[in-house]
């Protein structure tokens, strides 16, 4: 097997989006008839690379060889033409179509449907026998469970004669049982000679199913290993890299009374998938509780539920002794002393078209000090904004500037200043330093610690393990919607990493 021509060779692939260097000179060889994993953190460039291979983006430089032949993949049609199929993270299915219609789409084989439909129907029957890919061809997609919808995506690729199948984070939406079944199918496919590329950030999956694994980090391909010859520890280290440890000066915590209490909380996302599953924990005044976890394990939904943005399915949330879980009213929660620095400043924390001072009151625009009667007291608001700009060194120091024109770090400071300066009792923070420059990171970290020392209860969610470890007084690890363990901040990165991967508790 190792002697034959590789199924895919990528040579020197390079891709930039504006100033973001998504892929840097990537080389990758995938052997025929193997399952090749590509692992890396969110934003490492895995999806970009695969989108280039599938013709969705065009590389700025580099060469693609399929079966030893150099090919130009100008669009998805061309990718399909050379035998590449892709199962996207977000399914590319027409929800009110039947399975059959979805599979036929783009592979009709003529102007009329009848022939293509009967051909695909028998092909589906054949495939279900060969690869254990049973699915009712006449079922409507939106009535199928997610696992079966994904199977339709695989079938779409197979019917088009894909020899190489790319799966982008395929288990993100699956239950463990569905994921196990998927892996079984993938093994069968490999054993029948298909080549499979599996993109994931889950170490456990890599170890469970791949033959070879390549690690990406910040747009670069940093290593390729035989799965049998590597360990989870090594991969974790390769993925994360040796980072500059940001040192945060902080003394011992002096936790007081419980200020935020979450009991048996269950939250579903908009698709109805349970994202937070029966989670309970307390945060006391004067401590920082960090939630570590790989993105997508329920942290976002947890934050949104506590902030009153997403209605929980069951469970209770108590803020300063007052139960609020049934109230999805962020305004009320703010009045109870809750402040929320959201994960995504662009979509949630800021209105980018607003001038800076307008954002400096978002959520607090009902406060008396900003109003005179029904009118906004612009003088007071702008004075207040100027004071925050000065205190937080927001640049440029102009509260009349459109928020979109501030840099990421300064935008984040606008949010942080707004939420912290209200002097909340409970502060919940998501990804406080995502897309923020080093100087601002340090500044924001210092503020958070100051808040703790002032006796505030702080819940911190971050996918940056360093950040969690250096700021938190206690660490909860979330995996697949559960809190899988509580650790002290001096716990080793590897131990936490394994817990985050759902491997050890």
């Amino acid at each position: 097997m190792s002697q034959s021509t590789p199924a895919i060779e990528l040579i020197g692939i390079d891709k930039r989006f504006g100033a973001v260097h998504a892929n840097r000179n990537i080389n990758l060889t995938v052997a025929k008839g193997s399952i090749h994993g590509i692992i890396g953190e969110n934003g490492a460039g895995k999806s970009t690379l695969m989108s280039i291979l599938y013709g969705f983006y065009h590389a700025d430089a580099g060469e693609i060889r399929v079966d030893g032949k150099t090919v130009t993949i100008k669009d998805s049609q061309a990718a399909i033409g050379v035998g590449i199929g892709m199962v996207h993270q977000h399914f590319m299915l027409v929800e009110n179509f039947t399975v059959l219609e979805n599979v036929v789409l783009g592979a009709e084989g003529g102007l009329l449907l009848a022939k293509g439909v009967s051909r695909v129907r028998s092909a589906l029957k054949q495939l279900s026998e060969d690869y254990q890919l049973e699915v009712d061809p006449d079922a409507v997609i939106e009535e199928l469970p997610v696992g079966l919808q994904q199977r339709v995506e695989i079938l779409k690729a197979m019917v088009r004669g894909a020899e190489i199948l790319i799966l982008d984070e395929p288990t993100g939406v699956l239950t463990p049982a569905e994921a196990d079944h998927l892996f079984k199918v993938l093994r069968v496919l490999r054993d029948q000679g298909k080549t499979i590329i599996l993109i994931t950030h889950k170490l456990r999956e890599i170890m469970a199913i791949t033959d070879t694994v390549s690690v990406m980090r910040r747009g670069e391909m940093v290593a390729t290993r035989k799965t049998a010859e590597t360990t989870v520890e090594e991969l974790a280290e390769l993925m994360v890299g040796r980072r500059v440890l940001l040192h945060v000066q902080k003394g011992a915590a002096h936790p007081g009374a419980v200020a935020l209490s979450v009991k048996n909380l269950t939250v579903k996302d908009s698709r109805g998938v349970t994202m937070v599953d029966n989670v309970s924990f307390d945060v006391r005044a004067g401590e920082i509780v960090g939630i570590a976890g790989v993105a997508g394990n329920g942290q976002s939904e947890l934050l949104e539920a506590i902030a009153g943005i997403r209605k929980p399915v069951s469970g209770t949330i108590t803020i300063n002794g007052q139960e609020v879980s049934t109230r999805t009213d962020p305004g009320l929660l703010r009045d109870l002393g809750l402040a929320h620095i959201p994960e995504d400043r662009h979509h949630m924390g800021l209105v980018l078209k607003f001038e800076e001072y307008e954002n400096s009151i978002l959520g607090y625009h009902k406060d008396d000090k900003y109003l005179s009667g029904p009118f906004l007291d612009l003088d007071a608001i702008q004075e207040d904004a100027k004071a925050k700009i000065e205190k937080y060194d927001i640049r440029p120091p102009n509260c009349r500037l459109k928020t979109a024109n501030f840099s990421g770090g300064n935008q984040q400071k606008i949010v942080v200043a707004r939420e912290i300066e209200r002097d909340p009792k409970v502060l919940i923070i998501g990804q406080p330093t995502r897309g923020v420059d080093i100087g601002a990171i340090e500044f924001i970290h210092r503020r958070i610690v100051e808040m703790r020392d002032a006796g505030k209860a702080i819940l911190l969610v971050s996918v940056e393990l360093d950040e969690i470890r250096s700021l938190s007084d206690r660490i909860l690890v979330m995996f697949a919607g559960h809190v899988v363990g509580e650790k002290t901040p001096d716990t080793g990165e590897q131990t936490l990493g394994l817990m985050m991967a759902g491997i050890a508790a």
Partner: protein
Amino acid sequence: MTLTDFLLLLRDSIPGGVRLAIPLIFTALAGLFSERSGIFDIGLEGKMLASAFAAACVAFVSGSPWLGLGAGILTSMLISLLHGFASITNRGNQIVSGVAINFMASGLTAVLGQAWFGQGGRTPQLANEARFEPWEWPGLEAMDQIPVLGWIYRFIISGQNSLTYLAFLAVPISWWVLYRTRFGLRLRAVGENPAAVDTAGISVTFLRYRAVLCAGFLCGFAGAYLSIAQSAAFIKEMSAGKGYIALAALIFAKWKPVPVLGACLLFGYLDSVAIRLQGKSLPGVGEVPVQIFQALPYILTVVLLAGFIGVANPPKAGGVAYTKER
């Protein structure tokens, strides 16, 4: 008016209702093609009006209804291209584009009509040969012997013009195109999830352009019907909101071809009853305001949209320009 009179009126409104439904059928089917591909089409009204004008002009000049029809179709398709250029190529707001088209059609037909013919926006009266005239079917007398069927044969089946028969033909053809051809499958898919179409290696832009051209094609028939079949001239603003009623019928039919036929016939019939009921008083009720019948299509559609008669799910990707991003 006695109860018998009223029932007779209800019966006698049927042939008129069919005639009034014809432009609605063409136009609603036009909207069906456009909206199922994800392009909202408020400009149906304008397309109908413009094609009515073009058809009347060309039929007058050439003396041929078929050339008139061709001109109507061509005009309507050109407007569709403009709508496509604005909303597909330039990703403009589809509603705004439709509103603009309605304005331009309403203005241009009147301006050109006045400039060319000087009759206050009217086109000259067409000779009978220049119009689509009703066909009289054979054996009317014989069929009259049969109750009910004879009446249907004389007043509904016979005595219609070519475009009417085409309208009834257009429904199964549209259904067949949408549900039995490759183009139809792709068209329905692109209105629901353009990304799925794109990743299947199909051009979203080209597909949507073809869909709006289909809409233009069908609207052309509707316009021609108004000016050279139903009437014998173009009259200013002769579409009189029919494009919007067709839109309502399309929604009322939940964006499906066969129910579109039903909805259009219903709305056409309501219109016909309203015309005949004008100024008459009903037994036991008194005079029924005809405006109720005029407003009924819209009221029914709103009630449907509010979710009280099943659920009307518009095409999911409707109204949104496709951007290849993830």
